[in-house]
């Protein structure tokens, strides 16, 4: 285990931001932390990275106790913050140089790391420009380079793609995937994008500082998400058939959506009423359903 958290507590005055959570992150996996604003995601990350002090509980990061070897832990983790924290008036090169120095990387070592990062993240054209003259995607690439400059074992991404255009989001994820496959980097992610959570190895959903549920995306979908059949033709016949079976139906302009308990029911209905299955789709439940059913909240709205 690269991260092992036991009974973690943190309060701000009367607000319990993190209320006794426990979880583990395996080495090399993509771990997703989901939750609405105020659920306790950033507080947990801030505790793990040493920005905040915990009120109680135990945390082992990269095999080191958070209470005893914080400096060793800091050398092994890299963070991409929700909002870029790079110095806006300085160039990308200066930002990376000054940040690398904080990890004891100077001179030739820095130049070698800079070359590696420039190739990995395609930084060549943006290194000399001040941060405030860069686009959101370019800043993000530098944020990631800054987080990786000291070869961390654990990369923490706090909503890394929020506010980015789809193309840049794909670029960011292709870099992260490359790092995971080539270097076995463990990624600890918080995100508002359900498709990003769907691609992770393990998901923890936080609600009001507590763990609401956890598991692999597949397990969570099976447990909490509903499956559907979508009928494009024979809508009226399908509606009549499924209303008769007491199923919940949603009517749209071009199709009707029938809520199922499980996709295993589909063969049975095809056998019973083959003529209505003319133009249809079977839809597996997604992480949005999981989140909604677990917390009663839509993640995109918060």
């Amino acid at each position, binding site marked *: 285990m690269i991260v092992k958290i036991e009974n973690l507590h943190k309060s*701000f005055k009367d*607000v319990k*931001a993190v209320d006794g959570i426990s979880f583990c992150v395996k080495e090399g996996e993509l771990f997703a932390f989901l*939750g609405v*604003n*105020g*659920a*306790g*995601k*950033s*507080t947990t990350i*801030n505790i793990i*990275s*040493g*920005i*905040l*002090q915990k009120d109680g509980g135990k945390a082992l990061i990269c095999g080191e106790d958070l209470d005893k070897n914080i*400096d*060793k832990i*800091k*050398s092994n*983790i890299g*963070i991409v*913050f*929700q*909002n870029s*924290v*790079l*110095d*806006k*008036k*300085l160039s990308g090169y*200066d930002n990376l*140089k*000054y*940040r690398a*120095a*904080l*990890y*004891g990387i*100077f001179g030739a070592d820095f130049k070698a790391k800079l070359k590696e990062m420039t190739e990995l993240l395609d930084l060549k054209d943006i290194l000399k420009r*001040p941060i405030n003259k860069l686009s959101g995607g370019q800043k993000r690439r530098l944020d990631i380079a*800054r987080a990786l400059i000291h070869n961390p074992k654990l990369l923490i991404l706090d909503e890394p793609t929020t506010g980015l255009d789809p193309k840049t989001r794909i670029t960011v994820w292709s870099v992260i995937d490359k790092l995971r496959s080539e270097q076995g980097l463990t990624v600890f992610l918080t995100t508002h994008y359900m498709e990003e959570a769907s691609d992770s190895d393990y998901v923890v959903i936080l609600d009001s500082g507590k763990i609401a549920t956890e598991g692999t995306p597949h397990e969570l979908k099976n447990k909490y998400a509903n499956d559907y059949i979508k009928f494009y033709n024979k809508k009226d016949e399908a509606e009549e058939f499924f209303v008769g079976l007491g199923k919940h139906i949603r009517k749209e302009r071009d199709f009707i959506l029938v809520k199922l308990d499980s996709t295993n029911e589909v063969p049975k209905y095809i056998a019973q009423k083959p003529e209505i299955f003319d133009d249809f789709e079977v839809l597996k439940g997604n992480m949005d359903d999981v989140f909604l059913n677990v917390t009663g909240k839509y993640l995109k709205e918060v």
Partner: protein
Amino acid sequence: MQEAKKLCSLIGRNTKTYFKDKFLFFTSMLTPLILLILFFTFLRNIYIDSFTAAFPEGFSVDSKIINGMAGAWILSSVLSVSSVTVAFCANMVMVDDKIHSSINDFKVAPVKSTTISISYLISNIFVVTLVIISVLVLGCIYLAAVGWYISVSDFFMILLGCLCNILFGSLLATIVLSFVSTQGMQSAVASLITALYGFISGAYMPISSFSKGLANFLGLLPGTYGTSLLRNHCMNGYLNELANVGLPSEAIKGIRDGFDANIYFFDNSVPLPVMYGIIVGTCAALLIIYILIVILKNKNISFKFLDKIKDKFSKKSICEKD
């Protein structure tokens, strides 16, 4: 050794961030610029008239002495004011780091929080020193053009006076701004310092021209003595020259009193060594306060009364970011 290299890197980063921020640089030079504009538009003539008013009837001197003394007086004002206003503005880098959470980027790195805190103080001293040296060089060029009567020993004493003022300004600014972490408080402090310090240090008008109550109150502020030190060293050569050409000692005393080279604390004249004692003692006290703040912050002991003030300026709390 590694920690020392990290400290040097942070000092370099803080310094570069300040000089790259043109708006911040301009803001910090605002008070000295206003002072210079006022000097060249009308203050210069007022000072010259005041000097000559102290002369006995029929006494005349080379205009170089009078013009040079007016320039030396304004140079002492600019040096004194800049030591504080530039220190406060340059330390806005530290406040910006808190506002924009850049400080978190340092906190997640394996660098001691004391190293981060010390880097702000040292880079501030470095920035203020650079600005003060630049002002001093420009001032010396001006004085050489209008009339140079500053001896080598006085010049070194001016440098010593500048050092005292730089340390005073940087320590004061770093202590005050270490409690500022919101945009509102930042603006309030910057506006207050740039608008007020020129007056309370007697940079625009000599303290001797203020009411007795206000002059006595300003005598309680250590910065007054830092300014007066510079006044003494800047004007000394010119006053000596006036004595050499026969200006009576009463008239010289009148100029010294009128232009704050002599400072009175509740009617008692404060000698030069005592001025040094006050400013050096204040710097030592500020340094101790700063060390205590760094230690307490390092141990996460909060200053509750200041937290309440901060809450009034900003309702944001870290848990809202989740």
